[in-house]
């Protein structure tokens, strides 16, 4: 049986990808950011997940305003890095896991969560920057990745509770997949940041800290935060944090914190990262 053993959350700031790709990781500005991800790289090398489900949002790369799926699951064999205006990032093509992805899509729809199924999709920094932070710069990514895109660009995005419930349904779906697979789920985006208007640069460290604490202490409480509170307290793009709730929902209620990292700034954002592990059964 397949089983979700752990969840990871991380910001997906595009400038982090640019710093990596341009060899700037040793610069004083970037050093603390990359230092914060040394632990997870070693931890993942030990844990060796078979598949990763990566929850992210597309930033007007694969989806324009012509088509805006609230939840979309990538079922393709592979996903190419998107050209976001500077050419594609020089990172490996992402290999999917069509068999598990289709199984999850089918199970979710029958569980009354109406997914959009995607068979052709380029993946932008929302997906590739987290992979770079978790795995560094390998010739190929060490395991297949199932992209799960959440709309957080067009309001309204899904509610926090819907994201949390999606996570729970993903857990049920994975548990009903016959082959033995060690699965991890990654939630990305956030933490507090605002990219637009006179309020750009907004950062709220107390809110972010409470959110990190809440992932273990009170995830149900986090799932009830309304959109207006995210925008008010975490900045207009802090709404991305609803994607962390998909990850949290997919774990056991008593999942334990293994590691966390928080740093301000990376470009316009607060960088947050946490590892949560299910208890051994």
């Amino acid at each position, binding site marked *: 049986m397949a089983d979700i053993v752990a969840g990871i959350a991380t910001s997906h700031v*595009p*400038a982090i990808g640019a710093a990596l790709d341009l060899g700037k990781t040793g610069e004083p*500005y970037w050093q603390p950011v990359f230092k914060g991800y040394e632990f997870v790289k070693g931890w993942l090398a030990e844990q060796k997940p078979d598949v990763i489900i990566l929850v992210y949002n597309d*930033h*007007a*790369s694969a989806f*324009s*305003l*012509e088509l805006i799926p609230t939840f979309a699951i990538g079922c393709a064999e592979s996903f190419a890095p998107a*050209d*976001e*205006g*500077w050419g594609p990032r020089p990172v490996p093509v992402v290999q999917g896991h069509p068999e598990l992805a289709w199984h999850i899509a089918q199970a979710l729809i029958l569980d009354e969560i109406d997914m959009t199924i995607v068979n052709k999709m380029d993946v932008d920094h929302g997906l590739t920057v987290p992979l770079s932070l978790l795995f560094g710069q390998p010739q190929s990514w060490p395991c297949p990745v199932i992209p799960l895109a959440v709309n957080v*660009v*067009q*309001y*309204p995005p899904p509610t926090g509770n819907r994201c949390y419930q999606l996570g729970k349904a993903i857990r049920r779906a994975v548990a009903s997949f016959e082959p033995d697979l060690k699965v991890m789920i990654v939630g990305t985006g956030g933490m*507090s940041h*605002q*990219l*637009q*208007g*006179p*309020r*750009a*640069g*907004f*950062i*709220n*460290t*107390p*809110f972010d800290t409470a959110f990190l604490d809440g992932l273990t202490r009170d995830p149900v409480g986090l799932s009830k935060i309304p*959109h*207006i509170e995210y*925008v*008010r*307290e975490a900045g*207009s*793009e802090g709404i991305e944090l609803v994607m962390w709730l998909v990850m949290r929902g997919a774990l056991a209620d008593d999942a334990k914190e293994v590691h966390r990292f928080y740093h*301000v*700034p990376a*470009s*316009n954002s*607060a960088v947050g990262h946490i590892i949560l592990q299910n208890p051994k059964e």
Partner: protein
Amino acid sequence: MSEYSKAFEDIPGTVVFDATQSRIGYHLNMFCMSLMKADARAAFKADEAGYLRRFPMTDAQRAAVLARDYNGMIAQGGNIYFLAKIGATDGFSFQNLASKMTGMTEEAYRNMMIAGGRSPEGNRSKKEQNG
């Protein structure tokens, strides 16, 4: 306007990309989307006004693009992730665009971020600011 959308109006210095903004900004944003291709970026740079006429935008939207008035584009339905493609075409980073929208120099904005960013205090609510 729905109660849901109206509530966001209390947030200072922020335009939430809701149904109304998406509707009025559709062609502006789709123009931005066209800049995803290198030949389109070259065509735009060669004749900006002519290129903009290919899209059924309002004259005010076209003027805001030509002036690189990002706050003006946002007010007229532009979404920041789409508008960033204009910035990329001009060779500017997200941080550069953000500094422009705040009216700060890029250096001052960068220093504000290094010092911990813009504080939530006094920036949560227009009612709070006026009260």
